[in-house]
């Protein structure tokens, strides 16, 4: 065993530094020094399922805002509604100065959010809960309206003459994803939903391929997340389908696919901005009493990314900020 390890290390050393296409060495002077602390501690609680590029951007935005404002950020997440409520309750118990949270399951979270406002801790909602944040007692809201976003895609498809789109749901039972597809369907009535297993790229690809083979009248594929869209590119090629592809959400590879013309457009709810604004708004409220949105929600999307603006946006996706 030891000899194997030594041999392996030797091969590695021999071959090191002999290939193209890897990481670019970062500049030594990159990375900003943390500002002086503002003395505020803010809890940031989401329903992130670990390992999703979307939530990674929300968190990156929140962390950058914390650095820029000198806030001490406590990030926590749990996709289970009950556990997310407990996380909010924990933040209240540890007497943070502010709480930013997603309100994806308003009924389950109501108790904890009330406990927070009851203890005089300001709460800001983000990403989900646009209908309910006010009655729960949250001060402000940053996010996209999923139904509205779906409708904007639907309108654009209708204008382009779409007859029979399929809307690919990659997480069974998600209210937000269902709302997006319902939004598309409200504008193009023939829209059909397809359920796939988002945790397995091969399964997503074959399911889509099967759907395209089953119904040759499908002219648009709407995916609800960037990684799923990339699988759809493969499925389209396999099925030699002429259907056009549009998607929700961006990531680096997705942006490149738009630039290459493999994807028509992506609709972006700007998750980085959601995280950034939620923290910054709490900071401004604590420091200055500011109330952003003038009593209404602040929309971070829908924002269209297509061939007309991809050159501007592509570099940002490489930095994980869009």
């Amino acid at each position, binding site marked *: 065993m030891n000899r194997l390890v030594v041999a392996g290390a030797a091969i590695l050393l021999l071959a090191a530094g002999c290939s193209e296409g890897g990481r670019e060495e970062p500049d030594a002077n990159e990375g900003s020094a943390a500002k002086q602390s503002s003395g505020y501690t803010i809890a940031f609680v989401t329903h992130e399922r670990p390992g999703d590029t979307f939530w990674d951007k929300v968190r990156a935005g929140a962390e950058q805002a914390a650095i820029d404002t000198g806030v001490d950020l406590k990030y926590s997440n749990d996709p289970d509604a009950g556990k997310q409520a407990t996380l909010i309750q924990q933040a209240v118990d540890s007497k943070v100065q502010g709480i930013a949270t997603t309100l994806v399951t308003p009924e389950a979270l109501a108790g904890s959010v009330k406990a927070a406002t009851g203890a005089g801790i300001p709460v800001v909602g983000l990403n989900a809960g646009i209908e309910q944040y006010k009655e729960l007692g949250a001060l402000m809201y940053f996010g996209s309206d999923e139904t509205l976003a779906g409708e904007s895609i639907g309108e654009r498809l209708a204008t382009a003459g779409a007859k029979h789109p399929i809307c690919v749901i990659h997480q069974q039972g998600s209210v937000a994803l269902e709302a997006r597809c319902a939004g598309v369907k409200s504008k193009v009535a023939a829209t059909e939903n397809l359920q796939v297993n988002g945790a397995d790229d091969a399964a997503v690809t074959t399911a889509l391929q099967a759907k395209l083979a089953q119904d040759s009248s499908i002219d648009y594929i709407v995916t609800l997340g960037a990684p799923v869209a990339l699988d759809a590119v493969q499925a389209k090629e*396999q099925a030699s389908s002429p259907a056009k592809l549009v998607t929700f959400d961006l990531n680096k590879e997705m942006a490149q696919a738009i630039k290459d013309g493999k994807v028509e457009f992506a609709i972006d709810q700007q998750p980085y901005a959601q995280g950034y604004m939620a923290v910054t708004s709490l900071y401004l409220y604590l420091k200055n009493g500011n109330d952003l949105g003038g009593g209404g929600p602040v929309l971070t999307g829908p924002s269209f990314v297509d061939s007309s603006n991809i050159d501007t946006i592509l570099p940002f996706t490489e930095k994980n900020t869009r």
Partner: protein
Amino acid sequence: MSRSTSMGRAGRLLARPEVGALVAAVAIFLFFLAVAPAFRSAGSLFTVLYQSSTIGIVAVGVGMLMIGGEFDLSAGVIVTSAGLVNSLFCWYFGVNLWIGALLSLLFCLAVGFLNGWLVMRTGIPSFLITLGTFFVLQGVNLGVTKLVTGSVSSTDIADIDGFSSLQAVFASSFGIGDVTVWTIVLFWFFFVALSAWILQRTRPGNWIYAVGGAAESARAVGVPVVRTKISLFVTVSFLGWFVGMHNLYRFNTLQAGNGVGNEFLYIIAAVVGGTLLTGGFGNAIGVAIGAFIFGMTSLGIVYAGWDPNWFRAFLGVMLLLAVLVNHYARKWGSR
């Protein structure tokens, strides 16, 4: 595999683990032929075979492991770990992808060895040991990916040296007419045949049935129990690595959270294929048919164009039926 001699010919046939699964597979196949017009083409059949192979290859190892009386819950995530080790290492250090693939292989074999060694050393059920490995790998996948790339998905490695040759090995396809044949399907057939040969024709095959059926008596008659079981865990990890390589070189990037849940699909394939959850019974052809039933069912619903919200429910009914047919065929056969 049953070695009883007091049966009739028909009974002996039906008591074979794969026969019940075969009956179910034929029934499901005919059913979808009838209800789903899009199912009736060679292209569709090969899409089903492709879907089955990505489950079926790891299921070969999981089936052998289950015959040997153990479980591996880390088998789903290690597929993703395998790809991530390869991808992240080569991207970060800018080295040829072949080195990363080799390193990833060593890593996977080490995880398999550790699983087996811990189970044998401690006597704790493999269900618990590999549940631990499952969580560790899941967390490490996410944590390391985030540290290395600054995001939770690996970066595109298509420009790194060695990509095209590795893609040719692990994720190539060729066309016959308008049918796409992925070579991973052929690899699946090969692994199934190899496993069937080992289980039926070789001494280690006998050892696997012996350690799964009655480990203590096997030990008493000189079967190397520890070595056999550890080898089985290593086999599962090796096959996980193989599918991980396919996923990486077909999709170029990987999401760090992927693979979770697939460990159950492997176990389901093995069980539907006639492998006993208690060990000591089953065979490779059965496991392959089990994976094929899964692939056929999950895609057949789509080919039939049914409401996708019912997908899981329908899948569950199909699987229950397959297991029931299997169960009663075996009972009837061994009367």
